[in-house]
């Protein structure tokens, strides 16, 4: 099949990888009911966190990524917390959560500072002054160590879900079987 489109290669970055400390941050974390400032470390209480950095709410990759994560329902199998992060405002997150039936809290980072901390900035061509995180996932252990990292090296790109699930199987406890 000859698909005549361009995938853009992104430059190499110095993002955190396995064994590195995950940089600490605090941002508004949005649920279907309210948002409040929440620190990364406060989400590492007792089980690992899967931090999913994704393109702004409304972009089709955002929808695709969350549809896939909802279908895979990792939290049903493994002991972990999942949180998303995009540059969308809390109001946009609220709408996205409602319209897409997302049951994962989403960090709001319009100034893209977390992507800068993690060195995963994606400057968007044709949107002057707007940058967002590259698609990326970080599995962060309770001691705030990165256990698995995937960062897009081209655009567009989607997380390697099977590889991610292997990482979860390696680093997360299984949920006890229900009654």
């Amino acid at each position, binding site marked *: 099949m000859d698909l005549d489109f361009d995938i853009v290669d992104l430059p190499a970055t110095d993002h955190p990888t396995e064994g590195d400390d995950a940089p600490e941050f605090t941002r508004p974390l949005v649920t279907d009911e*309210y*948002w*409040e*400032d929440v620190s990364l470390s406060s989400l590492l209480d007792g089980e690992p966190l899967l931090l999913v950095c994704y393109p702004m709410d409304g972009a089709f990759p955002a929808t695709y990524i969350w549809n896939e994560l909802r279908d895979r329902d990792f939290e049903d199998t493994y002991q972990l917390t999942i949180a998303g992060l995009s540059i969308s405002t809390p109001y946009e997150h*609220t709408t996205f959560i409602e319209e897409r039936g997302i049951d994962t809290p989403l960090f709001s980072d319009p100034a893209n500072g977390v992507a800068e901390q993690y060195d995963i900035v994606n400057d968007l061509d044709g949107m002057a002054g707007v940058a967002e995180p590259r698609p990326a996932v970080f599995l962060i252990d309770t001691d705030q160590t990165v256990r698995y990292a995937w960062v897009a090296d081209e655009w567009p790109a989607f997380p390697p879900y099977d590889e991610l699930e292997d990482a979860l199987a390696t680093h997360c406890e299984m949920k006890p079987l229900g009654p």
Partner: protein
Amino acid sequence: MSDSDDTAPITLYRLQACPFCERVVRKLADYDIDYTSRFVEPMHSDRNAVKRLSGARTVPAIVDDNTGVTMSESGNIVEYLDKTYGGAE
């Protein structure tokens, strides 16, 4: 005042740019009380978290873990804060 401390005893449910909420914020600042802000939706019908707590969907509403008090309406809250933290009669 430190907003959104993880261990803050008071949780303030607020709406961005709501002057009644700002009145409570100013009072919390006056008394140097730690609090966590939880922002809710402008749409009244989407405020179920607040309804569960206080019985009403109005903001501001506060939950004070120091005293076990949950309360809404800015006038009531300001009066409560004055009595509890301001030494007012």
